[in-house]
């Protein structure tokens, strides 16, 4: 029994730690894909049918804020977004009742994290005034404009302007990480370079950019205009409680990602991927995933080294190249729809699925069922179908 409390307590700590931890200091600029400082959130999971000890990262204007990365020049300065932070709240919901769950998940004004609370470790972020409001252009370009040499370029023009031009100096040394060379393989006619969320395919004979492959968020990044043709593409019904439209934030859905849109400008200010549809092998993790956030039970298996980082994003633990933030492998798949102590067993866990090595110890009886999920074995009461306790961590 104590073990349950301990494990559950630890799980809660881990999740709140993930939620509340300060963002790390800015990473190096280096290859033009540096992690800037700014308003970075933690990767937080969206839990459906959650409650119990889970932190529900939901709410109006919620999700992560992405630090936009500047183009050109040396080290990336990021452009932080709206001053309002995001809300993370450990919602302890006792009922399965969706309506009540929604209420519990709704933002509580007192819980809103202001940008000034998320100080960069290295010091004050000049883009935010002392009341937390976004000051706009302190350094770099106004939101939505990409830095290009001396001036700022309107969004959406980057792609057009670079194809057929010489590969920019800043990206000439943007080498594809070793682990992805097979994926983006140089050929006798072309070679690949990486910079700021795009993979550039360059013609060997003349060093002109032949094409760009966007590697982030289905191709649309914060700071870009969301295509008007997608404005009718609403978030699927089962996500709607988590991404409701408000007067200053719309949510739309495309290509496996939920996009937070500023209703007044039509610009994307947030990209939230849904499960494995969002990120994948060879794509880029946004700057907001700069901190180590692997779920507690997997930390002994997946820890950062100078050669590779591990980051959790909905659906998986990814191995990430530290310099470029490119996903070099999917280390482990995780279910997003986890089991929570105190909640009903979700749909789809009717079949016994305990790993072979543990079946002698934990087998179904009329009094108790056992189900495995994301490194833990849980006990379930067959009569009520409620997950009664977390029995064992097996990773």
């Amino acid at each position, binding site marked *: 029994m104590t073990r349950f409390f301990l494990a559950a307590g630890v799980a809660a700590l881990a999740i709140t730690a993930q939620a509340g931890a300060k963002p790390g200091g800015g990473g190096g600029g280096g290859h033009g894909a540096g992690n800037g400082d700014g308003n970075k959130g933690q990767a937080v999971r969206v839990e459906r049918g959650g409650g119990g000890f889970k932190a529900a990262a939901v709410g109006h204007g919620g999700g992560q804020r992405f630090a936009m990365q500047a183009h050109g020049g040396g080290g990336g300065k990021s452009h932080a977004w709206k001053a309002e932070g995001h809300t993370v709240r450990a919602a302890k919901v006792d009922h399965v009742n969706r309506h009540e769950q929604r209420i519990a998940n709704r933002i509580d004004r007192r819980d809103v994290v202001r940008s000034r609370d998320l100080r960069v470790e290295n010091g004050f972020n000049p883009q935010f005034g002392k009341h937390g409001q976004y000051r706009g252009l302190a350094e770099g370009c106004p939101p939505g404009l990409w830095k290009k040499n001396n001036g700022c370029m309107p969004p959406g023009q980057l792609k057009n302007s670079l194809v057929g031009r010489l590969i920019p100096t800043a990206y000439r040394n943007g080498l594809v*990480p*070793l*682990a992805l*060379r097979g*994926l*983006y393989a140089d050929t006798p006619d072309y070679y690949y370079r990486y910079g700021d969320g795009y*993979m550039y395919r360059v013609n060997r004979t003349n060093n002109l950019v032949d094409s760009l*492959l966007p590697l982030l968020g*289905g*191709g649309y990044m914060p700071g870009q205009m969301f295509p008007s043709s997608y404005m009718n593409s609403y978030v*699927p019904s089962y996500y709607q409680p988590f991404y409701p439209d408000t007067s200053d934030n719309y949510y739309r*859905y495309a*290509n*496996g990602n939920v996009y937070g849109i500023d209703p007044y400008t039509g610009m994307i200010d947030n990209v939230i991927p*849904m*499960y*494995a*549809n969002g*990120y*994948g*092998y*060879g*794509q880029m993790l946004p700057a907001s995933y700069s901190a180590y956030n692997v779920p507690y039970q997997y930390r*002994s*298996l*997946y*820890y950062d080294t100078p*050669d*590779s980082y591990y980051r959790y994003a909905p*659906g*998986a633990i990814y*191995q990430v*190249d530290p310099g470029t933030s490119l*996903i*070099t*492998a*999917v*280390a*482990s*798949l*995780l*279910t*997003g*729809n986890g089991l929570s102590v105190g909640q009903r067993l979700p*749909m*789809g*866990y*009717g*079949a*016994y*699925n*305990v*790993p*072979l090595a543990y079946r002698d110890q934990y087998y*179904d009886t009329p009094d108790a069922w056992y*189900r*495995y*999920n*994301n490194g833990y074995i849980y006990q379930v009461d067959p009569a009520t179908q409620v997950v009664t306790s977390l029995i064992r961590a097996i*990773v």
Partner: protein
Amino acid sequence: MTRTALMLGMAAAALTLTACDQGNKASQPGSAQSGEAKKAAGEKTIATGLDQNSRFFAAAKSAGLDATLAGPGPYTVLVPDDAAFAKLPKATTDSWAKPESRAQLTGVLTYHILPGTVLADDIGKAIDNGKGKAVLATMGGGTLTATRDGGKIVLTDAAGTKATVTQPDEKFSNGVVHRIDTVLMPGKA
């Protein structure tokens, strides 16, 4: 002890090989799995046990999931045979080779992976409990419906396409594989 030494030796050899292939770069990413993760995964993982020439494995490699299936999991993988892939429209399978479609391919493949170790018997019991029907959660987030047809288990996807389990319960150190005869498609979210 020798087992660990052997694995370490193999890992080192694999690293050296990759180094040779890629040229003269110093830093090596190695594999996706750390030493501890490899140990937890065991010796005969699903990744090593699958036919490396099969279309499923090629698709998994393209999505980077071959490295995942070498990890501790455990995973239950529904592997469509080559004939199943041949049934798909060529346009679909061609598009999967493109980097832009990698996310979509990952969604299809994770729809074939169930969390934990689910044996055919377990599915059978769940079908009986459910009076003829059981819902199975997948890693991709969607669900499959399992029913019985004659002696075999039939899985139905979001669109209603049915796949029969032709060869169940191929056990590995990090999970189990069931061979099926049709590729299942997750619903359009």
